[in-house]
């Protein structure tokens, strides 16, 4: 899917004759406008980016996450070298960039799954440098993985319940006395079933997660992440491998998160999706943030187009430059 959507973007870009920006946005209307349910989802932060400077590392009115000088090297390769990036609270921020740009690595650094060689990250104004990944969930940050991690031999319902916070029965001694955790467990189960219902997965609740299809796993992983009642949700390619109809409903769920006041950062290759749901776009290429801006501005940004085309279509790029 990754390759597929990438080549779609590129194909659209190639067709461009005058300004690539127009072409980037050309199909957005067709793919983007969703079902009626989605149209009604309010956007509480509408217009908040109006006065934000569209340059890499620009200040936002209310920042939830700030990363500075984050560098990660693998041997000779510098996978991530982000000078500065600031994420607006309550908004949907898209992180885009060609394959191998360092998006997943950057996610790993932000979520404590990998340690940067240099740099600082702040969540809600406090440093989370060196904070273990499992502690970040308690601080309101949760992530999903590009390669979906369904817990195969747990039922879908158990997958969901695992996400719950404050379950005293997760302590060894408390676990021995059912009455000490039964009450919380019942609440957790109700919450899990409500979320499954929202994701239209109720019929799969008692199946092993390992029996789900790839797209269903994406849904369960996202729903499971929401069980932690996160403030900040980080989704690594949530729509990859998901069919168009399901993509629409996933987009609806993401907008719903924003309507609930949560912050979303997601990695995505499909520009239609990006234009449809994101309030702000951050572009990575070769480990660096090369551009930031509203989806429309990014679509018209020559540096972005170069980054995408440059990595795959050197000849086309020369052709455009000659024009």
């Amino acid at each position, binding site marked *: 899917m990754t390759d597929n959507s990438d080549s779609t973007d590129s194909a659209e870009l190639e067709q461009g004759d005058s300004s690539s920006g127009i072409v980037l946005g050309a199909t957005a209307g067709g793919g983007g406008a969703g079902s009626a349910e989605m149209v009604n989802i309010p956007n509480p932060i509408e217009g908040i980016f109006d006065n934000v400077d569209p340059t890499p590392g620009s200040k936002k009115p209310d920042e939830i996450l700030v990363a500075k000088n984050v560098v990660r090297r693998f041997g000779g390769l510098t996978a991530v070298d982000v000078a500065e990036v600031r994420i607006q609270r309550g908004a949907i921020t898209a992180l885009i960039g060609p394959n191998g740009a360092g998006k997943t690595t950057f996610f790993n650094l932000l979520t404590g799954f990998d340690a940067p060689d240099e740099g600082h990250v702040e969540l809600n104004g406090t440093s989370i440098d060196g904070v273990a990944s*499992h502690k970040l969930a308690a601080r309101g940050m949760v992530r999903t993985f590009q390669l979906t991690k369904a817990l*195969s*031999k*747990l039922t879908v319902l158990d997958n969901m319940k695992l996400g719950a916070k404050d379950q005293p*029965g*997760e*302590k*060894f001694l408390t676990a021995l006395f059912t009455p000490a955790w039964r009450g919380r467990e019942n609440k957790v189960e109700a919450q899990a079933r409500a979320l499954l219902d929202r994701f239209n997965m109720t019929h799969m609740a008692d199946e092993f997660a390992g029996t789900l299809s790839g797209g269903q796993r994406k849904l369960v992983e996202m729903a499971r992440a929401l069980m932690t009642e996160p403030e900040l949700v980080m989704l690594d390619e949530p729509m990859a491998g998901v069919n168009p109809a399901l993509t629409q409903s996933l987009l609806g769920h993401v907008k719903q998160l924003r309507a609930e006041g949560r912050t979303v950062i997601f990695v995505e290759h499909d520009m239609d999706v990006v234009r449809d749901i994101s309030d702000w776009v951050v572009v990575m290429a070769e480990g660096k943030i090369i551009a930031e801006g509203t989806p429309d501005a990014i679509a018209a940004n020559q540096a972005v187009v170069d980054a995408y085309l440059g990595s795959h279509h050197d000849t086309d790029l020369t052709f455009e430059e000659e024009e």
Partner: protein
Amino acid sequence: MNWDIILTQFFSQSIGVNAMVFAMAAIGLNIHFGYTGLLNFGHVGFMAAGAYGVGMTVFWLDQSFWLGLVVGVLFCVALALLLGVPTLRLRSDYLGITTIAASEALRIFVRWRGNRERTGASEGINDFADDFFALNIFDKPGNQSYRFFFFEYRAQDLWMMVVGWSLVLLFVLLNWQLVRSPWGRVLKSIREDEDAARALGKNAYSYKMQALVLGGVIGGVAGMMQVIAKQSVQPDTFNPVITFLIWTVLIIGGVGKVWSPVAGSIIYWALISGLITFMRELIGTDLSDTLETWLNLSILNVDQLRFVIFGFTLMMLMWFRPQGIFGSREEMALDDR
């Protein structure tokens, strides 16, 4: 051919002291591997730690047997921490390599001559559990052996079995309660995918450590039962083959199910004892010349046959029922998706 002896061996050994010890050890291994996904290839090391804990307390420190039981448990906790601290943050195979090496190192260390005053070296420690057998309710003058149907036991073994199987039941119940609790759910999630568990806020390292300690202590208690029954701690009874027999027992029963260690152990010991006795009897008949000529089988090497039979049975099991007695094929199939 004396069928009475064969059946007596078959039935008696099915729930005998050995079956009890292996069932208990396998419960510990099941918590490690079946529920948490920890590769422990040195389970016999925990058995040794428990056994020497009680033995050394009596023999070396000259303290009471009962205190020895506590020391045995502490030895197991210490061994689990020693193994877990450096390896549990790494990939699962590191623990596997470390455990197998540590259990062998432990065996070689305790049998080292320089440790004679502490561990008894290669002679081991004998007659340290009199306090335990002083409580034997079956030990009545003139009645040293009990028989019911095809089950036949000495008073000493019967007392051991009553205590041991009670402990097994206790551990099974503990296991059952834990794996139905949210704590057990976290263990299973770590077995399935540690990173997913961490992303959801679970401290995978801490849970793996708890599981390693718990399973290790249960393995250690099994080791204590084994040496108490024989009133003898010998370094060479804790050789790596034991670890693999425990794995066999667990696989027969079905990995990751509460009752499988018990079922696996009963089946293993019933079959192996029944078959070996059967072969012995067979050698006693007029077939003995044929067996000697064709299979080179005599009363001298018939015991070796247990591994041949067992390897074959295990192969058949893997072929026809890879999930074990209690395992579910559906669950197993999920591994391939």
